[in-house]
């Protein structure tokens, strides 16, 4: 080992012994510090994982969804629109979708009722989302009665339950036949909730959307790119909101850390005086204190980050679920695949480790350059 390394090793050894002498105080600081990193890193990792999941799932969303607006609100689309769009150059296929919301006063939750584009269930039956099935403890063959638009009871028997793994997109879905849907909501034939278009050439999607709006000015085309962008913006916003809420706690911690790191106790000042008196150089004392700051902050960062990773990867960020749930009665159960953005992790590292390590140096430098006799007498 080179003399320089040997020297640093001894300095670290001395620093750890000094930290151990004030065990309670330093442990408390380490725990609070690690906790702060844990919360910040959890938010970052969780948002990143959700963003990835949304991008992967919605990559299969319809290329163009066309809504009709009446007085600025979504309205039913007539079949004539569908025929007109199906004939547009560049459109491979156009289909009318039927979906709507059903508010169930018993559960105080909104369900999404939908007619599948392919393989709809037979009339009188339904396929339900996994969260809804769990909520009502539904099994195949069970009957759930909903109330139609004109107040009649509308019993539907469960034909199947959508896979548990698809809860993130299908938690509250109720899939029914077209005839049932129209009877349930009182929607006559020839009207759809919205239309979905498939485009032959993926590079022409924006062009086709322009044509849709030119030919049918009362419509609003939504392309898949916009859906993905909306979700990216949604999670950015959420991350930002949580960070703003957390900033109070972060500032409080910074004041505590700054106070702890930049103010020297009488005991620490005496220690510096003694070290100087027995022949330590100012640079040794600075190095020793820098090691102290680095050890505490790097340990806290690593502990906090690792705990956050386990929190998100193994427990799907279960501590955040109550906040995310809001008023949702039907909240999906889902596992997240962790995703680490090295840039974010390094930003967090720089923002949490370096200010603390540097804050320890200033007062030490002031004491260390002073006369040992004067320092010890203070």
């Amino acid at each position, binding site marked *: 080992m080179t003399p320089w390394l040997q020297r640093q090793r001894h300095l670290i050894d001395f620093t750890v012994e000094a930290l151990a002498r004030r065990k309670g105080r330093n442990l408390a600081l380490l725990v609070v510090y690690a906790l702060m990193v844990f919360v910040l890193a959890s938010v970052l990792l969780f948002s990143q994982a959700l963003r990835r999941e949304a991008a992967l799932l919605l990559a299969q969303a319809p290329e163009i969804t066309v809504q009709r607006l009446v007085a600025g609100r979504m309205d039913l689309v007539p079949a004539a629109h569908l025929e007109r769009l199906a004939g547009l150059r560049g459109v491979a296929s156009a289909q009318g979708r039927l979906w709507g919301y059903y508010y169930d006063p018993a559960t105080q939750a909104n369900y999404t009722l939908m007619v599948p584009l392919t*393989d709809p269930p037979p009339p009188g039956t339904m396929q339900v989302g996994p969260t809804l099935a769990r909520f009502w403890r539904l099994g195949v063959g069970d009957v759930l009665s909903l109330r139609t638009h004109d107040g009649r009871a509308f019993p539907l028997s469960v034909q199947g339950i959508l896979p548990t793994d698809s809860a993130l*997109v299908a938690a509250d879905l109720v899939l029914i036949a077209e005839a049932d849907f129209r009877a349930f909501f009182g929607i006559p034939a020839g009207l759809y909730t919205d239309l979905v278009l498939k485009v032959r050439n993926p590079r022409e999607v924006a062009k086709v959307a322009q044509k849709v709006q030119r030919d049918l000015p009362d419509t609003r085309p939504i392309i898949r790119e916009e*859906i993905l962008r909306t979700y990216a913006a949604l999670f950015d916003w959420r991350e930002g909101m949580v960070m703003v809420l957390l900033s109070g706690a972060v500032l409080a911690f910074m004041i505590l850390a700054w106070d702890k790191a930049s103010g020297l106790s009488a005991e620490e000042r005496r220690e510096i005086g003694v070290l100087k008196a027995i022949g330590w150089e100012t640079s040794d004392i600075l190095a020793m204190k820098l090691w102290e700051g680095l050890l505490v902050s790097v*340990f806290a960062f690593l502990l906090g980050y*690792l705990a956050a990773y386990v929190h998100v*990867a193994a427990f799907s960020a279960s501590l955040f679920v109550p906040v995310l749930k*809001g008023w949702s009665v039907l909240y999906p159960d889902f596992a997240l695949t962790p995703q680490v953005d090295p840039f974010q992790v390094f930003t967090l590292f720089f923002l949490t480790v370096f200010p603390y390590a540097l804050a320890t140096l200033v007062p030490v430098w002031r004491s260390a350059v002073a006369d040992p006799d004067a320092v010890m007498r203070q």
Partner: protein
Amino acid sequence: MTRGHRTRGDLALVALLALTLAAAATFLHAALAGGRLDGATREGRNLVARLGLTDLALFTEARYTRHPTQADRHAAFQDHPMALEHFPSGSMMAPPPFFGRTAHDPLAPATASPD
């Protein structure tokens, strides 16, 4: 400090090294896990493709939080003019895009373009 004798400083360095390796392992784990689609994601993608779904079922309490991408233009204040946002998830979601640059309007001025 004698050779071969482990001090507290050495233990601290070993612990630091172990934690650093564990942190590095998370990068590897995330890269490996992110590289392949797990069963749940594949199942979800299939359903999205089959049903033509457009949104995640994260916030099911209101129409515009259930389908943020399909919501009315004046979501989230859509219940009546000047209605105050009162759903908790409203504070978690981005404001509608038309508050800033609109996501849909860029298509509007281009409608006069030739076929």
